[in-house]
């Protein structure tokens, strides 16, 4: 409620767009993680059982002919395709390439958005100047950038980075501005009074203060990056997880499509875990607050 008293330009933008809410949403990875060890084991066991039951029902239905195996490929067939692609090396390579593209595009986006966000967060005038552009590009769904990215950059690697950048830049910028504005003005003033230069204030006060919110913004951006790259790889690519799904589609092979979907889910789950670990490392002072 304390933020209430400070009027700010971006607050309305952040709130109306659902971007802030989305950042909150990606913070729910801890949902199924309970501090109670025994309960966690139980949850894990039930989860495994549930997956097993689902697979058996799925396989049984297709074998018994309740579901046409052409419409929904049985799990054994999916496993077979997965194994084949794993052994011939295409799957690991696709995974590696997609990850690489995500990282490059994401890094470009993170660096520019954080730098610009800090400037805009500290200066109302600069923010007002950027506001018209930002308010046009912010509501755009990430996929809406794909046609433009293809037309500007063709279908090479540059286009892949560009799509990730275009899809993540605006939401990230809005969140960074918001995070910077949330840093208590008192700290900034105190540092200035004690003789800190502007650069020092940014480095010593604003960045550490805004870091937790920036981290959750980065996490959201990373999630969007994956959606972007997979979409980008579907249109005119030679490799990557999106390519995997799209080739399956173009050959009418639903088994391949399902393998691609499962691999994407697994990758995102792993990346979420890595990011959570990174977050605990970078923002150690929040460790207790979250529990």
């Amino acid at each position, binding site marked *: 409620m304390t933020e209430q008293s400070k009027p700010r330009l971006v607050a309305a933008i952040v709130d109306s*767009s659902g971007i802030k809410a989305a950042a909150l949403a990606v913070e*729910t990875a801890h949902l199924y993680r309970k501090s109670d060890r025994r309960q966690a084991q139980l949850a894990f066991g039930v989860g495994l059982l549930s997956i097993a039951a689902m697979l058996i029902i799925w396989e049984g239905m297709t074998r018994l002919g309740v579901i046409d195996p052409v419409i929904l490929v049985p799990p054994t067939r999916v496993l077979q395709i997965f194994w084949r692609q794993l052994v011939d090396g295409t799957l690991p390579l696709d995974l590696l390439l997609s990850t690489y593209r995500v990282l490059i595009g994401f890094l470009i986006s993170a660096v520019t958005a954080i730098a610009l966000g800090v400037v805009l967060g500290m200066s109302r005038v600069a923010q007002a100047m950027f506001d018209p552009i930002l308010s046009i590009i912010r509501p755009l769904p990430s996929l*809406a950038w794909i046609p433009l990215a293809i*037309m500007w950059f063709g279908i090479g690697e540059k286009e892949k980075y560009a799509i990730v950048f275009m899809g993540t830049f605006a939401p990230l910028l809005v969140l960074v501005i918001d995070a910077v504005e949330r840093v208590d003005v008192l700290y900034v003033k105190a540092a200035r009074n004690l003789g800190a230069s502007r650069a020092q204030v940014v480095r010593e006060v604003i960045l550490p203060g805004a870091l937790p919110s920036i981290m959750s913004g980065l996490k959201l951006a990373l999630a969007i990056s994956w959606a972007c790259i997979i979409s980008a790889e579907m249109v005119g690519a030679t490799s990557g997880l999106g390519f995997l799904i799209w080739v399956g589609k173009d050959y009418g092979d639903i088994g391949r499509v399902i393998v691609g979907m499962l691999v*994407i889910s697994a990758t995102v789950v792993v990346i979420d875990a890595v990011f959570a670990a990174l977050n605990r490392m970078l923002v150690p002072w929040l460790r207790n607050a979250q529990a």
Partner: protein
Amino acid sequence: MKGYFHIRLLSAVAFILVWEAAARSGFVDTEFVPAPSDIAVQIRQMIVSGELFGDIAVSTWRIMVGFCLATLIGVPLGIVLGVFPLMRWIVGPLLSVVRPLPSLAWIPITLLWLGIGETQKYAIVFLGTVAPLVVFVTDATLRVDPILIKAARNLGASRVQVMKDVILPSALPSVLNGLKVALAIAWTCIISAEMIGARQGLGFLIWSAKEGSDVSRVMGAMMMISLTVLVIDALFRRAEISLLPWQRAELRT
């Protein structure tokens, strides 16, 4: 906000003028970055021919249907998962498989299952939004103060009563936040849904502009998408204010 109005206006005007000048003088290649006036001409054409309003109406309808179905299923399911740990553990794995999938990934399967009709468009919006929504609502339910629940139980409320009278009202603000996220995702879904086998819609508009290699049309379509999203968001905020009367003062700022 008022104090900065002139700066925003000035900056918007300056931006458009510089862009226009750069395009006209040949400083930037208009085949890649068309002049704002060219984009305006394209938008005018879309409006005059009447296609734009049809596209907006069709896309908005598809989003609303998919989104409402996701709400009707996702919110109750999310609350149930929040209340019953066993259910949460059973459904959890399925959710974590479905949640990270980008909406484009649903295209191949929905084509095979449902064809290219309206049902398939609704399905892509539904499939893309329901899992994140369930996760969000479950989380909101888990955050409800357990003391409130215990108090209600002690006073003799049934489980269903607790869900309806305690959990739903106190989780409602976060649930609405979740719905906002889902709505934002729904817009990305509609761009996917209208990529293959569509004859109308904002997604169709932008993809067909791309096939025609017409950058000014693509940019015009992007602006119209942006504008539509803004309007729908504003309407949603109105609904939010009326649903949460006790938070009205806070929401209006």
